[in-house]
């Protein structure tokens, strides 16, 4: 709680900040609901002949969250990096809206939150967000200042990112996700480094994103409460 500014962040009032949001602009939502936003068929990945996960079959529909659970080293991060396109799967295929996931389709459909914040320490929080919006695009009618207010970082706009704590950096990257026009969020350990209020924030952001017709994959090692939404579970066992 000490990480938050003294004034109560708008995000603290449930529903208030999110109610004003325009719906996500993504064409997929108007398509037939039968085509999942993301589907994996026989997806497997191995590192040096050592299988990391899979083969896996799963699908995520619009308005749905997939909770990827597993112990440390069970391949949760690797799975998300494969889905994002940072790693190449050894077997299986990935489909986005029923079509094979090529880089262009991925880039428009997927927003990825990894372990590294992708923030430049010398730049202010706002400058960082402006750059990332320039790179990834931005949802219409959404502005970095408002996104920072939603994630409880109002008042830190002009602070250099290097002065932020790990939890505050996570909140800034959550603001980046909020601004992204992509309908599918891949969140790798979104609860890490966050306080109780931050965990709540992630759950409320995910709920609002799903309500707007998006979908979310999130990894957790099981210690946190899942968002109160339609959730599928994917349990990753160890390599054994």
């Amino acid at each position, binding site marked *: 709680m000490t990480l938050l500014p003294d004034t109560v962040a708008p995000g603290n009032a449930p529903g208030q900040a999110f109610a004003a949001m325009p719906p996500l602009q993504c064409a997929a939502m108007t398509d037939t609901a039968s085509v999942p936003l993301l589907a994996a068929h026989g997806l497997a990945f191995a590192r040096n002949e050592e299988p990391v996960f899979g083969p896996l079959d799963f699908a995520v529909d619009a308005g749905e969250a997939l909770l990827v659970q597993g112990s440390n080293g069970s391949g949760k991060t690797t799975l998300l990096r494969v889905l994002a396109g*940072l790693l190449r799967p050894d077997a299986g295929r990935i489909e986005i809206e029923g079509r094979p996931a090529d880089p262009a389709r991925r880039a428009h459909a997927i927003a990825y939150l990894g372990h590294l914040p992708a923030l430049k320490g*010398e*730049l202010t929080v706002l400058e960082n967000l402006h750059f990332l919006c*320039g*790179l*990834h*695009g*931005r949802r219409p009618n959404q502005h970095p200042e408002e996104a920072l207010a939603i994630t409880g970082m109002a008042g830190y706009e002009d602070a250099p990112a290097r002065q932020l704590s790990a939890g505050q950096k996570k909140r800034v990257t959550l603001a980046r996700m909020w601004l992204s*026009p992509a309908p599918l969020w891949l969140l790798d350990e979104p609860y890490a480094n966050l306080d109780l209020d931050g965990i709540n924030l992630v759950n409320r952001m995910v709920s609002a994103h799903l309500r707007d017709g998006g979908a979310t994959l999130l990894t957790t090692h099981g210690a946190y409460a899942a968002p109160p939404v339609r959730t599928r579970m994917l349990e990753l066992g160890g390599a054994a």
Partner: protein
Amino acid sequence: MSATPGLVQAARALLLRDLRLVWRRRGDALQPALFALLVVVMFGLALGGEKKVLEDFVAPHAIWVAVLLAGLLSLDSLFRGDAEDGSLEQWILAPVPLAWLVAVRTFGHWLTTAVPLLLVVPVLGEFLYLPRAQLPMLMLTLLLGTPVLSLLGAVVAALTVGLKRSGILVALLALPLYVPVLVFGAGSVAVSAQGLDASGSLLLMAAMLVASAVLAPLAAAAAIRIAQG
């Protein structure tokens, strides 16, 4: 701002970010120029300050080597910072081609490291008794050659970005690639100093620039994808 950024918009955002970063660390930005100055001073001291030797044989070559080495030192910062804080992951996932971002980043790097170097070249020339008449030709070859050095360097920097510390490996990989640029760059100045036509080697350098501007970002992008995988 539209939902999906165009090439120009992404390039502008990246250039603006890089210029801001350089401005915040403007002390660092002077380092390549100071380094080149010191190398030139070393040449002068080692050769005993003999005016005849310097102006006839050494000046343009020593300046070319000094500029090349100064550029080499700044290569490691091209992608390393972005790899360490996760920015490169976001570049790969962006809806614009990675090679385009690499090209823009390399241009920004050239703008902030090589251009300050070019600005001090007249001063370096005075240190080494460079005949004033040779200065325009020297500047022209550096203007054509330093972008090639940056582009070739981008490939090397991308290849070594996955290593914890690349150190001297960058130099070992980059210097052999720099040889043709150095030979034709310093060579053109020497040729024109003798009153001969240097347009052949200048055109060759321009061809190197065009070829590396097209091919180097593609190669560097492929290397970054492998390093981030």
